[in-house]
């Protein structure tokens, strides 16, 4: 398997700021996502997210729920999936996970850089949404993927598509870059279960 350098940091329980850091990261992510108006969900249909839905999903309820259980956040860059080994690794890993992690205990964030090349941003966003819905349908992805139209997560994909793993109770988190090595997978499964 290919070894690679992970870019994320590991937080340990004995770090006195661990709870604070993790809470900040979750609040940051959920806050950014709740501002996003585009969602492509697992029922294979693209639809705009209503404000009330977003608040319920991404707000306090979401944070409370995920504080107790392990969960995954994928930061996805489509251009990175031109690399077949990265796409294969992502799909293999996803389909190896037990059902909760293929659905409600995972979310995805798609980094969208299309609008840099397009004059009309709303058309560009529709194009990205359309492609994403095809990707979700064809690959049977069961978790919602949000489009990061505000570029908040763009810097995170500098090394490729990543998965952020949060263990149950927010004890620890670690970020892994696709393609995952065998050791990466083992580590992730240990954190999740």
């Amino acid at each position, binding site marked *: 398997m290919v070894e690679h350098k992970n870019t994320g940091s590991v937080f340990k329980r004995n770090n006195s700021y661990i709870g604070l850091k993790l809470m900040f990261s979750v609040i940051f992510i959920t806050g950014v996502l709740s501002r996003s108006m585009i969602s492509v969900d697992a029922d294979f249909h693209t639809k705009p997210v209503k404000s009330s839905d977003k608040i319920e999903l991404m707000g306090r309820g979401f944070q409370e729920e995920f504080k107790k259980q392990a969960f995954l956040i994928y930061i996805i860059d489509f251009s990175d999936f031109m690399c077949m080994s990265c796409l294969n690794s992502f799909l293999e890993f996803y389909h190896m996970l037990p059902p909760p992690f293929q659905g409600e205990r995972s979310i995805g964030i798609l980094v969208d850089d*299309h609008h840099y090349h397009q004059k009309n941003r709303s058309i560009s966003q529709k*194009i990205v949404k359309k*492609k994403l819905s*095809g990707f979700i349908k*064809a690959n049977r992805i069961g978790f919602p993927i949000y489009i990061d139209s505000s570029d908040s997560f763009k810097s995170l994909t500098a090394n490729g598509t990543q998965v952020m793993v949060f263990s149950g109770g927010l004890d620890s988190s670690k970020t892994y870059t696709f393609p995952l090595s065998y050791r990466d997978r083992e580590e992730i499964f240990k954190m999740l279960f």
Partner: protein
Amino acid sequence: MSKRIVIFHVLILSFLLGAWDLFPKTEPQIKIRLSEVLSIGSLEDDTLFQWVGVVVDEESNIYVSDTMDYTIKKFDASGKLIAIKGRRGQGPGEFLSPRSLAQSNKRVYVIDENIPGIQVFDDQLNFLNRLSIIQSIADIEVVSPDRIYAASLSYDKQGVIICLDLKGGLIREIEFGDRKKEMLKNFVNFEIGSDNCFYLVYNFDDKIEKFDPSGALLWSTELFKKIKSKKEKIRNITYFTNIVYKDIALDSSDRVYVLGGDFSDNKGKDVYVIDPDGSHIATFTLPESSHCIYIDHQDYLYCRANEGVTLKKFKIIEE
């Protein structure tokens, strides 16, 4: 003082002469415009997600490969979807990155960027067989029921178009390009004319070439002088980063249509028309950027819109 003025004027003159060379060598002689006749797929439906390859049969049915949902799709002449096949995988009728298509004699041939070989389907898109070929293929043309031509993806080798029989057996090879081993230098798209001549555009080099059926070079032309694709070194391998020409298509009179890349005024939109003798006779611009162009037997032109969510069909009108 006068010497300085003379030197200054000589320098200005040299600069102007040098700049003159950057313009296309020949002035276009005719004007071409496009009139849209059909549009398939939109941002509001789930017909196409990111189509890549297109081919049209004698009955004007349109076959399209869609890389985002790993399928091939068949539309009738009115644009109605009548068949869809494929899913992600490496088995029969499955794809990882479906790309170019070709058709002949009610057979549809599909190449996949990540699976060696050619998959063959009937005209209802039922899988028939796979032709085993070791090397990856960049482009494919089938001009007769028993002759399949394919340009191999030559990463650092002499460029080769291979001619195969219906079982995938090698009949002959046609060499082209630079023998110098340079990464991607011999990546081409090609077409075969009614006279069985080969027309090639190089993706990373300013070269458009015509070879006779035996493989002898008839002419070579360039539309941009002194332009070279930039290179970038990634993990000790040097890659070209600018595409000079994206695709080539021929109409029924063997006029050559070349889709320009990063060096065109309108990237991915300018189409250069070259007569069968190699003279640049016209330039026109597509409404939207496309990665490819295709011209069917009735001389309709097909290209991308909405970054592959939409397929457009145009009538080519000469003015």
